[in-house]
């Protein structure tokens, strides 16, 4: 079933995610099963409704879109088959592209640091990721003892892998180019 979006923002989300928020009848099943809803400023149900009403600023400036852990419980249980986790992804992607200052800064900082490592080395590099993240969030002492313990157990590699570094970098460049062309 296709229902035409009634707001520009809902239309944009539909284009980004393939998901029509207009199918939602506000049963709140997504909010009920969400493991992190207690930390959110708006529940997933409210975010869906706000998108429907075209309240772009509220959505892009919410904590909820960043706190979503992508556990997909909401998506799994939605009686209207709306992929809510995908809608959350679309909101985050739009927020990044429009350079909206995130309300929960350390989460996008983590994503950025993680992807930087992958772009440079082809694979994730936990030690480098942690250092980059600390530089970005300025939380230098957080989880220090955990890191030391991981090192001792041989679970934190001291050197990155260098796998298909040119090819991987090309993937990232081509993706940004295509996205700029509006794909």
């Amino acid at each position: 079933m296709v229902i035409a979006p009634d707001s520009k923002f809902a239309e944009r989300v539909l284009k980004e995610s393939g998901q029509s928020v207009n199918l939602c009848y506000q049963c709140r099943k997504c909010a009920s099963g969400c493991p992190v809803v207690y930390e959110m400023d708006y529940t997933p149900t409210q975010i869906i409704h706000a998108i429907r009403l075209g309240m772009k600023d509220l959505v892009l400036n919410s904590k909820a879109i960043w706190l979503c852990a992508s556990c997909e419980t909401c998506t799994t249980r939605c009686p209207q088959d709306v992929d809510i986790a995908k809608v959350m992804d679309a909101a985050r992607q739009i927020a990044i592209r429009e350079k909206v200052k995130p309300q929960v800064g350390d989460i996008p900082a983590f994503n950025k640091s993680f992807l930087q490592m992958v772009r440079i080395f082809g694979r994730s590099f936990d030690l480098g990721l942690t250092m980059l993240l600390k530089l970005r969030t300025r939380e230098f002492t957080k989880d220090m003892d955990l890191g030391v313990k991981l090192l001792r157990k041989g679970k934190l590699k001291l050197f990155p892998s260098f796998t298909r570094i040119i090819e991987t970098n090309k993937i990232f460049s081509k993706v940004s180019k295509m996205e700029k062309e509006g794909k």
Partner: protein
Amino acid sequence: MIYSYYPGCSLDGTAKEYNLSLKAICPVLGIELKEVKDWICCGATSAHQTSHLLSVSLPAKSLAEVEKEGLDEVVVPCAACFQRLKTARYELENSPELLKDVSVIIDYPFENKVKVLHPLEIFSSSNVLELAKRNIKKDLSKLKVVCYYGCLLTRPPKVMQFDNYEYPLSMDEILSRIGVTVLDWSYKTDCCGASLALTKSEIVLRLINNIFENAEAVGADAIAVGCTLCHTNLDTRQEEAKKVYNKNYNLPIFFFTQLMGLAFGMSAKELSLHTHFVSPDKLLSKII
């Protein structure tokens, strides 16, 4: 049976026990794993939260390598990689336009033919279960575990098509076949907070405390997992959760492959049991 093998970044580091134990038990079960040549990162949660196109292209690159190597099935033990690879395959199957774009991005005429499998799927087939049963050398019946599947093995069901998505049983079935006492509980598919661990660790502590409380309440000695992120959160943050919530549970977290190895008579060292934060030594000396 030969399968292509995509270990993923975690199995190279924080979840090395999973890699070692899986590789140790596969020959016993008549399974040969051939690691994908120079596989790259699947992009994980960070990619799909940042760019849809990137989140499909990164897994497609490694799947294309499997295609080039002429194998048609790839085994992916990390639940997060498993979900990303399977999602990429699903989305490419449903959008010829996306397939065209991704082929340009990865510079390969990708056919999207490779089937993505989790070890739990392979091990729960009747002939592998039979082989597993025939190779039991140690009695693990005194070990009481709960099986924790987490989010990404089964969700979203439309894509994953894996087990029962609210109440999966594949791991329970495998472990009970090899003689472990498997208990029923309520937190099989609840979220542990996954990658929020490094940024919002207080959320993870709350979620894992719920999991530990229920595991303890049903009488479990340990928790069995099939996801690298679940293992890291439950194992490395258990001490912290105990302090914050003033609890005294002590639950070693095993990859299900380690328990299979134990049943097959493999040594603790071979299965890398010493690299866990929550030591299983005391528990194992009591029951084996």
